[in-house]
């Protein structure tokens, strides 16, 4: 070892000698430039001012070597590999300084400095990391294991009221309670009969019975499924070109069915992420699981993006963003370009997750890429019929392909000898001006055709003169090969014994006979006469084509050709496709053929790939062993298992918090979609953990969780205000909540008697090609109104429906004049108010007072106050026309506070 030391000393020694020189070089030539040109954006000071660009610091040696988001800035000894120098040379994407290139002399200095080892005396460490480290992150509340506390919801909260000296409100009265519960669980108002039954039920468990009845209603899934559909950015169309997602409704119905059947939440999550990869014990189960994966495909993707590798990553990003927000309440997308600025999510984690989804094919790429529609499995008997039918179609398709390729290899020329009558080809025609030979676009007669080159307009003609042997009537057929660059009005003149006739042909359109000929009509030609057909290019725009003219003796017909054979086969195929059993399709995903890990995309740029990252999950939320990623599968199944695991600290917490929010109007964590460090912390962490733990304990039963919360006294309290707790953080009362868009519409239709309660299935015409200007007329529940991204029902838009392009856990709450104007003037409101008025007036058994009672009870769940009664009566007394007067009163009720709010 000793001699080795000596050798090292010997080698290094000269550099000691040079070091002073090189230091001086740095101080003289390099440091001043860095300070002057670079520090304003790349120094500790810039970092402190939050103006650091590209994550790069140039004020320490470590900063130079470590580099920024694009990698090391300097590779000592290798000027050409040093990003710093390339940027200074303006050689590549990054051009520094942005104001303009530095002088060649300075560039040469930098090259020399780097070549000689980039000696830099500046010490000081650089912290690249801006958010929490993984260690710090694991200590953050959201990533900690659940810590449930003993005691019910009420026990846990009442301790806090007492400690804060708050007096809770009493229980809400029964009419208020049944209205609140009906809207919360079903999204529909209770009928007057249901109100009476509940108010009159003096059994001690009357409330529990009501809760259980509502939980068992099929309308429960319609209400609660919609909550999930907000999170799943569910829609029936894409913004782009208004493309209708014809199979999306299956997913909507799947979600509704899952909530009705109380499918455990962990299974529900698993199916949506990896349903196609999970085992299934029946065709039915397999169908459901495939439909569940539509979740991954609903992004409002711009299929027209021409850079397909970019598009592929955009799809992955959108999926990650949705999964992150909906299931984990994490803002994972922030880490696409750089380490998360606040949360413990390094870029590596992003690409570990992205690698999984990148192995999953969501689109088929083309100029306009397309989502995948895959066949749904059917029951065995149906399957058999489907297979036979599909085989018949496949056979026909093969025949057609074969025929087409045969026709392609032999250009579709019609030999002159094949044609009856007198054929005059372009080769035999008399030309004035330059006519250019071509065979570019088939079909044609003979060896090709000629065209005018779209030049010298008015100077070219071509004359087709037949040798007529027998005087008589002839049908004149003219052939040309059509195309978009052809002239639209080509003058063709027929000189015959009948005189002269000019016809204008549109050569952009395919000829009507066998795709080759147009008939110019029947004319008389005489044996010794001067009959001919003349094509001119005068007054034309675009290419004029001249191919052949056929003079067919009257009564003769053109023989059919193999083109027709093709047409026949195609017609047959069409008939078969239209007639046979139809296989049901689903929007789903497929595993990519090549399974691989992803590389980090430097600053999110798909064309600047960095380090390879093994597939994995969010490290900070990983408790226990990391899932092992299979070599032959995307890893989605492992991702799904991790998401749905009881050990995942986020999944159960996030969902329990959402359920609390859906029932009480605010979450225990108020930022329901953000459990990161920029979100709010839970007001009652132990209560949240207790609910989450019980949720898991109850087998992830959503209904059990809902039941637990609505049975609490906390849920049942009267609404009110507590000046000492204006945000109601301690839940000493319930919050007054507004009806959402769906409930407003469904209640208006309930009062008018127009609401249809049938469930499921597609709700727009099957032939609909685009959602543009779609008119919504369906009278079914709002959850079934197609969610067309370019044509939402106006009521939805006005009343804060979730933006169907992004996962939404919390809708906007706006109070704006357009809402007032909608209720004052929109035809839907006016028509339904009138319907309701007719319905009321048809009740001969009721007087006006009883009619008003019924209206109030149906719409507001209570009787009118004496004040309301007298005001309405006075108004009706002045009405000129009874139906109109009542309709106006109904409309007033629709617009009133007690209609729009739950108390």
């Amino acid at each position, binding site marked *: 070892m000793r001699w080795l030391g000596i050798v090292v000393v010997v080698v290094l020694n000269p550099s000691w000698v040079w070091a002073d020189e090189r230091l001086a070089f740095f101080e003289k030539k390099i440091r001043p430039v860095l300070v002057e040109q670079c520090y304003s954006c790349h120094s500790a000071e810039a970092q402190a001012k939050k103006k650091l660009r590209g994550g790069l610091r140039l004020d320490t040696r470590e900063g130079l070597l470590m580099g920024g988001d694009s990698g090391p800035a300097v590779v000592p000894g290798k000027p050409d590999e040093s990003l710093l120098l390339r940027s200074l040379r303006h050689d590549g994407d990054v051009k520094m300084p*942005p104001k303009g290139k530095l002088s060649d002399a300075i560039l040469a200095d930098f090259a020399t400095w780097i070549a000689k080892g980039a000696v830099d005396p500046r010490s000081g460490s650089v912290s690249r990391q801006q958010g929490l480290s993984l260690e710090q992150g694991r200590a953050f509340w959201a990533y900690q294991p659940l810590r449930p506390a003993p005691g019910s919801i009420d026990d846990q909260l009442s301790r806090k009221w007492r400690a804060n000296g708050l007096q809770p409100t009493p229980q809400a009265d029964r009419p208020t309670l049944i209205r609140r519960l009906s809207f919360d669980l079903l999204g529909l108002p209770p009928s007057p009969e249901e109100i009476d039954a509940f108010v009159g039920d003096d059994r001690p468990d009357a409330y529990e019975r009501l809760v259980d009845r509502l939980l068992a209603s099929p309308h429960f899934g319609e209400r609660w499924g919609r909550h999930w559909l907000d999170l799943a950015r569910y829609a029936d169309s894409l*913004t*782009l*070109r*208004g493309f209708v997602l014809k199979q999306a409704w299956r997913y909507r119905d799947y979600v509704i069915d899952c909530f009705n059947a109380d499918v455990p939440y962990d299974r529900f999550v698993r199916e949506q992420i990896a349903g196609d990869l999970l085992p299934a014990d029946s065709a039915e189960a397999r169908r459901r699981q495939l439909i569940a994966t539509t979740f991954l495909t609903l992004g*409002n*993707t*711009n299929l*027209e*993006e*021409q*850079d397909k590798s970019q*598009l592929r990553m*955009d799809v992955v990003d959108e999926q990650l963003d949705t999964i992150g927000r909906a299931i984990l309440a994490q*803002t994972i*997308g922030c880490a696409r370009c750089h380490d998360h600025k*606040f*949360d413990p999510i390094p870029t590596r984690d992003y690409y570990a997750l992205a690698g999984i989804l990148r192995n999953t094919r969501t689109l088929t790429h083309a*100029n306009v890429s397309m989502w995948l529609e895959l066949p749904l499995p059917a029951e065995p008997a149906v399957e058999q019929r489907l297979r036979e039918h599909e085989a018949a179609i496949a056979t026909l398709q093969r025949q057609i392909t074969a025929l087409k390729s045969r026709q392609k290899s032999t250009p579709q020329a019609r030999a002159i000898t094949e044609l009856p009558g007198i054929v005059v080809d372009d080769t035999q025609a008399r030309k004035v001006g330059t006519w250019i030979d071509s065979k570019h676009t088939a079909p044609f007669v003979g060896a090709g055709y000629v065209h005018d080159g779209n030049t010298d307009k008015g100077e070219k003609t071509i004359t087709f003169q037949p040798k007529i042997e027998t005087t008589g009537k002839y049908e004149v057929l003219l052939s040309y090969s059509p*195309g978009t*660059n052809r002239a639209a009005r080509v003058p063709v003149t027929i000189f015959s014994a009948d005189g002269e006739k000019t016809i204008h042909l549109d050569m952009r359109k395919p000829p009507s006979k066998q795709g080759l000929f147009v008939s110019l009509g029947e004319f008389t030609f005489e044996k010794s006469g001067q009959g001919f057909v003349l094509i001119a290019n005068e007054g034309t725009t675009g290419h004029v084509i001249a191919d052949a003219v056929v003079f067919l003796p009257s009564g003769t017909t053109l023989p059919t050709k193999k083109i027709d054979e093709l047409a026949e086969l195609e017609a047959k195929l069409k008939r078969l496709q239209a007639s046979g059993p139809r296989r049901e399709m689903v929007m789903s995903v497929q595993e990519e053929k090549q399974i691989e890990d992803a590389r980090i995309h430097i600053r999110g740029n798909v064309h600047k790939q960095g380090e390879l990252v093994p597939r994995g999950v969010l490290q900070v939320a990983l408790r226990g062993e990391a899932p092992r990623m299979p070599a032959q599968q995307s890893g989605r199944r492992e991702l799904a298992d991790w998401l749905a695991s009881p050990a995942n600290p986020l999944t159960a917490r996030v969902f329990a918090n959402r359920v609390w929010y859906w029932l009480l109007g605010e979450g225990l964590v108020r930022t329901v979609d953000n459990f*990161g460090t*920029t*979100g709010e912390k839970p007001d009652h962490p132990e209560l949240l953990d207790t609910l989450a733990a019980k949720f898991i304990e109850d087998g992830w039963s959503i209904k059990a969780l809902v039941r637990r919360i609505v049975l609490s006294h906390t849920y049942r309290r009267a609404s009110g205000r507590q000046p000492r707790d204006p*945000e109601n953080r301690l839940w000493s009362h319930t919050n*007054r909540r507004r009806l959402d868009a769906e409930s407003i519409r469904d209640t208006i239709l309930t009062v008018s008697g127009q609401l249809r309660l049938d469930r499921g299935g597609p709700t727009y015409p099957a032939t609909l090609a685009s959602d*543009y*200007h779609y008119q919504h007329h369906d009278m079914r529940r709002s959850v079934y109104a197609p969610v067309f991204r*370019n044509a939402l029902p*106006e009521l939805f838009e006005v009343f804060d429906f979730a*933006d169907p*392009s*992004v996962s939404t856990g919390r809708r906007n*709450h*706006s*109070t*704006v*004049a*357009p*809402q*007032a*104007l909608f209720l*004052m*003037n*929109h*035809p839907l409101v*006016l028509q339904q108010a009138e319907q309701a008025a007719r319905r009321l007036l048809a009740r001969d058994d009721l007087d006006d007072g009883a009619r008003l009672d019924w209206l109030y009870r149906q719409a507001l769940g209570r009787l009118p*106050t004496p*004040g309301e009664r007298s*005001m*309405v009566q006075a*108004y009706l007394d002045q009405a000129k026309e009874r139906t109109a007067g009542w309709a*106006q009163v109904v409309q*007033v*009720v629709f617009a*009133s*506070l*007690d209609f*729009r*709010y739950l108390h």
Partner: protein
Amino acid sequence: MESLGLLSRRAALQAAACGFGYLALSGLTARASSPGPHLAARAKRVIFLFMQGGVSQVDSFDYKPRLERDDGKRLAFDDARVLANTGMRGSSHRVMKPLWKFRQHGQCGRWASDLFPKLNEHVDDLCFIHSLHTEGVAHGPATLFLHCGSTNFVRPSIGSWILYGLGSANENLPGFVSIAPSSGNGGPRNFGNAFLPAKYQGTALGKAGGPVSDAVFRNLTHPRLSPHAQRRQLDLLQAINEEQLRGKPGDTELDAVIRSYELGWKMQQNAPDVLDLSRETEATRRLYGIGAKETDRFGTQCLMARRLCEAGVRFVQVTYGDNTANPAWDQHSTLAKHAVHAQAVDQPISGLLTDLKARGLLDDTLVWWGSEFGRTPYAEKNGTGRDHNPGGFTVWLAGGGVRPGVAHGKTDEFGFAAVENKVHMHDLHATILHQLGLDHEKLTYRYSGRDFRLTDVHGHVVREILS
């Protein structure tokens, strides 16, 4: 009539000018005050004349004699479509000369073709940017990028950002109006608020290809009741609301709902007048080309834009386009059709500029004319049209503190790629915000745990074109 204290309510409402009938509320979305302005503003409002589909710069304002010289020659170009699809450079294409003759115009001697003869009379008032470049080769991505600064992600549109930054100047009207927007290529997203609060959403007036009579504010009239009768009904509603409010004292949200009905009523009284063009003189209507078959529609829309601006709207977009996948100016074949579109907009835009100037409105109104991208100097295979070109094209600005009579930036000698003083679409956005007194780096909105900007992490103000 019993007023039920409504008069005092109305007075209170007049004091609370904050957006399109918006009443500051609700912890999550409300933002009581605007985040801007950050700087001294040179413009108070923007009119964006959107030429949907892609006007050819080399046939209009970017004069390239070389195209005449090399007409018909096959040369290598970095076709943006091919580049995006395959990464391949230098595709062979046939150069195509402009179909319209170029001449010099105005005091500044600006070269412009005969495509827009009327507009050419205004060149001394216009500021051309010849070196614009953008993202997205297809209409969908490029149109979204033009409006929202992103080709794919759901982001707020520029009008929404501006309204968010400045607030509205008239509580009876929406602050951001899009006249005859197209349903295609992003549709409502191009005037959407995305994650910004709903009050910043653009309000569409009519739709592309629809009749001019469609361009009205929605739900502003009751189909049957007279204003008097409707006020009577509204008084009943408000009386019942007061009754329902009793016993819930201090609930500001419920109070705001009551006030929203009064605000709606006020809008109903005032807003329709703004769009009532019968209040204009015949001379003004003629100036915009209203009444002439070719120019009636776009002229009407431009005049509406001026009236909306006068009434305090911050951002008015007028779209010349349609709903197809190949919108209006998209001449992949038969470039000669540009003439039809030019004729439809030339007189109206010229009239708008003349009118704005005469009324002194051009000083603080920034007029912006342009497409989502330009067109290639070479022909499509059919020989009669041009393909999309996001790499270099021309837009012009007028008024609002930009230098008149100048041309900024250059494309190469074919008019294909921006090469000198390049201006990215992000830069144009930053510059427009700057003129309105908004710093594009400070105009941020926190959503989903991070601050978003119209210009993302890009954009530089093009100071050279500011007066």
